[in-house]
């Protein structure tokens, strides 16, 4: 969400500071066996998704389906361009195909340009739905009804359809007509009120958390519905409220209220029962390391690693409860040790002793990281307008049917002709006619 000019802003467009990521593919562990599969098809190959979603929540959800091999067809229109196509343009030169935000979260999808403001455009959309398994949308309430593309209309052309509507407040209830965005879910859900430095104001969490959280929950619901359809032939409609999905992430806050009549206080990086538990300063400016001990054994290991083994026997720190009471003293000791050290030295020393420690990483750190390069996290495909740039790829590996990001995010309408030809079997003349009537825009 936030950006400052990088001290390394002269780094070239590839930003692979160590070169590793460009040369090394994913490294799989020793569990990889010869495939027992009769096919090497990716899990959702053969599943088609009509994707009407935009901004972040919906696209984050359908991205997961694309990662798993589904054919995700994004239905767009230049008449209402996705706002993320305008965010973080490559090299600060705007253009509908240059937005990094869009290009990150729409990898692996296809795009068809269709003016849903016309009856003919809506007819094409319905014909696509008729040959799809899943429809996803996150428009404001009522938009799909106005287009005649609501669930009750669409199930007539596809009786076993699975459709998800993802909205701020859900499809029912007094607030359902109102607009919301992912960033607003952070305060709405109470997460902002629970997050923040001790004694300070509520805090945002650096990302529009309601969006990816809403998106991934939508993916779970859609795939559960698909599992059910595979067994029973029955489709269904899913109503997801991003607000409610965000509340599902806050059981400790809500149950503290239910159990004790009050919410937890804001306490920075501290934990309710564990100490030390924080992010401590290191030698270089604005470099930090997280350190957390979950047990007495881990604390004893920390004391040994920092050369103060007697601390583990000190009655101020001998138990978790005592460490919580004397946490200010304990943090002063830990930060006294980290303050003059390099964050990676701290990490190596503590990890070798079995203590959970790791630097607080920046985006520049992540893009240059050897571990992530070895696992092949970042994709660097060639995009027709922005060239080769790093995007986050798939955060998991499959042993038998490896999944990779097959294509960069689509240009607006890049696959219009291909989809109409291959999926709907339209002739070149029919496509030309639609284009002439300005339906494909």
């Amino acid at each position, binding site marked *: 969400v936030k950006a400052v000019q990088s001290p390394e802003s002269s780094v070239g467009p590839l930003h692979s500071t160590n070169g590793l990521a460009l040369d090394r593919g994913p490294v799989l562990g*020793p569990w990889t066996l010869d495939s027992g599969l009769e096919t090497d098809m990716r899990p959702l190959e053969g599943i088609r998704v009509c994707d009407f979603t935009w901004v972040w929540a919906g696209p984050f959800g359908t991205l997961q389906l694309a990662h798993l091999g589904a054919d995700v067809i994004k239905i767009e229109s230049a008449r209402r361009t996705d706002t993320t196509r305008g965010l973080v343009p490559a090299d600060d030169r705007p253009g509908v195909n240059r937005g990094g935000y869009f290009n990150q979260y729409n990898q692996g999808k296809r795009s068809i340009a269709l003016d849903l403001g016309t009856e003919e455009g809506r007819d094409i959309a319905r014909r696509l739905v008729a040959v799809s398994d899943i429809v996803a949308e996150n428009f404001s309430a009522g938009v799909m009804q106005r287009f005649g593309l609501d669930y009750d209309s669409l199930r007539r052309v596809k009786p076993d359809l699975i459709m998800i509507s993802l909205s701020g407040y859900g499809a029912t209830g007094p607030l359902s007509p109102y607009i919301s965005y992912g960033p607003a879910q952070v305060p709405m859900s109470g997460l902002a009120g629970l997050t923040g430095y001790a004694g300070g104001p509520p805090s945002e969490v650096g990302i529009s958390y309601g969006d990816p959280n809403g998106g991934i929950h939508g993916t779970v619901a859609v795939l559960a519905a698909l599992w059910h359809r595979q067994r029973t032939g029955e489709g269904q409609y899913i109503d997801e409220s991003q607000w409610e999905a965000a509340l599902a992430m806050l059981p400790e806050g809500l149950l503290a209220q239910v159990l004790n009549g009050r919410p937890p206080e804001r306490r920075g990086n501290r934990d309710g029962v564990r100490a030390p538990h924080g992010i401590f300063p290191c030698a270089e400016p604005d470099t930090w390391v997280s350190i957390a001990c979950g047990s007495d054994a881990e604390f004893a290991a920390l004391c040994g690693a920092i050369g103060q083994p007697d601390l583990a026997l000190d009655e101020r720190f001998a138990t978790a409860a005592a460490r919580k009471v004397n946490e200010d003293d304990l943090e002063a000791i830990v930060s006294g040790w980290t303050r003059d050290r390099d964050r990676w030295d701290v990490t190596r020393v503590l990890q070798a002793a079995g203590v959970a420690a790791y630097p607080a990483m*920046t985006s520049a750190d992540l893009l240059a990281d050897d571990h992530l390069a070895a696992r092949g996290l970042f994709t660097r495909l060639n995009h027709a307008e922005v060239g080769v740039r790093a995007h986050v790829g798939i955060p998991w590996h499959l042993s038998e049917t490896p999944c990779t990001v097959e294509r960069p995010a689509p240009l607006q309408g890049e696959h219009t002709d291909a989809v109409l030809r291959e999926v709907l079997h339209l002739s070149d003349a029919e496509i030309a006619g639609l284009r002439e009537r300005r339906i494909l825009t």
Partner: protein
Amino acid sequence: MAGALDGLRVIEVAGGAAAGYCGKLLADLGADVVKVEPPGVGDETRTLGPFPGDIPDPEASGLFLYLNANKRGVTLDLTRPRGRALLHGLLRDADLLVHATPPPAMTAHGLDWATVHELNPRLVECTIARFGAGGPLAGYHGHEITSASAGGWTTITGSPDFPESPPLKAFGQQADFQAGAHAAAVSLGVLIGRDLHGGTGQHIDLSVQEVVISMLEMAIIHHSYGGRVASRLGSKVLQPWAMLPAKDGYVFLLCVTDDEWRRFVEWMGTPEWTEWEIFADRAARAATWDVLRPLLEEWTMQHTVEEIYQGGLANKLAFAPISTMGDLLASDHLRARGFFATIAHPHAGELVYPGAPYQLSATPWVLRTPAPLLGQHTAAVLGLTPEHAADLKAAGIV
């Protein structure tokens, strides 16, 4: 009514909030989830609160009770051969094994892919690991704050108003919950693929660190598209997008589109601001936030949070209050949708929990049973005779 995942058999080996949340998402939609906990101590989340009266109690952790409703619970010591043999018996009939056992301990606990794949070729195994199950750092230790930091989340959380303060972790177990949700999604996708394409099971290696990185919104692309490093000390790409003080607390303002900005300034009675070049578009307003912020604060300080929220709704603006937990439990909207769910637990009593994150029309989310007491279903799930159970208990296996 049937659940969407009726017939799906899941074995969850306990180990924190990520595997617990994965199992919960599946159990709440009808899967038969058996949770395997270490005897004596149980799942790590039993030690995390909140607790009634703030007194630690492994059968009354709010987090544990929330994560484990709708599951059955057994205890097994997987460091012992007899414990592993009993686990392997359960795996023979299962569709999915999910766990967050640290990769170096997987073989010792009988969870390595070669072993479980041979036992049951149709089994899907999902390993949730802090740094993934493979790669140079696969053996590194971690907790929630480790993953939030390793994933690049904490350096972008905080505020330029506190330049000396450290990177900040979001409240709760957000990295673990996201990893658990991704694990549930990918596991379902792989299981569907297994059945669609007539294949065998496979191993999913899911990294909590990478899941966090995948949710950093613009942080990675700020670098690869603009050569900038995202930071909690930096500025936003658009404004207004901020929490500002109102008469009686903080309120959140957001105008993503220029239409929203126009409606906002008309409502404030300052329509001429749309003519000002320094506020010309969302990026310009971000660049001149130092000027805009005090102007907006002057207005927000004259109104209550509720006035601003309600006015926002009426003007089609996604403004928001900073909800307290009490506000949420009292919300008319959430009540009308039946969001909160209540169930009685034999030890902790009747409690209200966060409910369905989604409503499925044909196969609804249902809270059926409370979280298991430690080892509550051991004998029933393992099919033990009283003699066998007593023997295993005496040996410390269950």
